[in-house]
């Protein structure tokens, strides 16, 4: 078969046909995988929420809460056991990581203390900044543990900056970013708890 010549009409037609077929094929694959992607995402999210909160039966409606310290709103998931609120999970984030964006699920119980956290997404240095997944919940080292603390009881800043939390060795920037995300979570919690009247109904 002879090679098609590079005339204007041939080129336009070829490019059109190639892109048309590619687009159609992609549309088909997208449709096919759309549900599975959604399921995988939801699963990862609900597993993270389960890890950061006390036992609960059902999740309330997701609310998006605007916080003063950031341009993007954060998602807040209230969790109920029976009719009683047991805590809220806040999907918080920071852009101050050593490699930028970090997304963390933070669980705050009804007394306003941090119950647990789970790092969802990060691109920090493996072996250094990536230690934040476990570093801040080491119950043997109270200096670096953030679980059970609240902004009222301790200052959420690294000890180098005059705060109460010990930073990860050799990863101060990541530690600052982590605490920045935590502060944002508490901020969202405060805004949200007023709306949900958590403090009135459960305390």
């Amino acid at each position, binding site marked *: *078969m*002879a*090679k*098609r*010549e*590079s*005339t204007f009409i*041939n*080129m336009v037609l*070829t*490019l059109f046909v*190639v*892109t048309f077929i*590619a687009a159609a*094929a*992609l549309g088909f*694959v*997208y449709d096919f*995988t759309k549900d*599975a*992607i959604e399921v*995988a*995402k939801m699963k*990862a999210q609900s597993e993270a929420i389960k890890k950061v909160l006390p036992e609960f039966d059902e999740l309330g409606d997701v609310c998006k809460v605007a916080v003063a310290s950031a341009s993007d709103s954060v998602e807040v998931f209230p969790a109920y056991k029976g009719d009683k609120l047991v805590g809220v999970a806040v999907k918080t984030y920071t852009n101050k990581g050593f490699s930028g964006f970090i997304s963390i699920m933070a669980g705050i119980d009804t007394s306003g203390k941090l119950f647990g956290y789970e790092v969802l*997404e990060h*691109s920090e*240095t*493996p*072996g*250094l900044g990536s230690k934040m997944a476990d570093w801040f919940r080491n119950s043997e080292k109270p200096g670096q543990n953030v679980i059970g603390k609240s902004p009222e009881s301790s200052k959420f800043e690294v000890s180098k900056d005059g705060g109460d939390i010990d930073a990860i060795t050799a990863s101060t920037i990541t530690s600052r970013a982590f605490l920045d995300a935590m502060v944002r979570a508490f901020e969202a919690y405060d805004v949200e708890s007023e709306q949900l009247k958590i403090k009135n109904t459960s305390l």
Partner: protein
Amino acid sequence: MNQWKNFSKGFLKENPVFVLLLGMCPTLGVTSSAINGLGMGLATTFVLLMSNMVISLVKNQIPDKVRIPSFIVIIAAFVTVVQLVMQAYVPSLYKSLGLFIPLIVVNCIVLGRAEAFASKNNVVSSAFDGLGIGLGFTFALVLLGGIREVLGSGKLFNITIYSENYVTLLFVLAPGAFIVLGYLIAIINRIKKN
């Protein structure tokens, strides 16, 4: 015989990483563990195989002057397929490879094979060529990732081999990639000489 040659040349004689030094960005970027190397390698292999086959099938329909954009569109389509499928069925691997999956589009190995091989050969040869080069790339990434993972985090395929207290962290960081790659290239050259 001839097909075997097309297939096997990717491993040693024309290994894209160790000999041709192509695709350095994903090579150095994702190989902080063996499993990442394997995932990246297999994703690239799939794209190489499919794009090589399709391009060798349609090569006569595509006018010379627009062949590069046409090839890129074909390659990009397959990369997006890989991306969507990984996102749906292996989300954890997708998360750790992240940015590098869309970058397969501009991986010069893929376009290089399309331009240098698939656009001149028939579909069977092109399939073997794509598979061989792809698996050679996978082999190189797993080797590099494995060595870095063992030295840098004391694990291999996520199985702990020795305590994390004795690891040399450098090897999972960027400089470690260059150092290990340099030694591997030296060793491969030595083997090829004999």
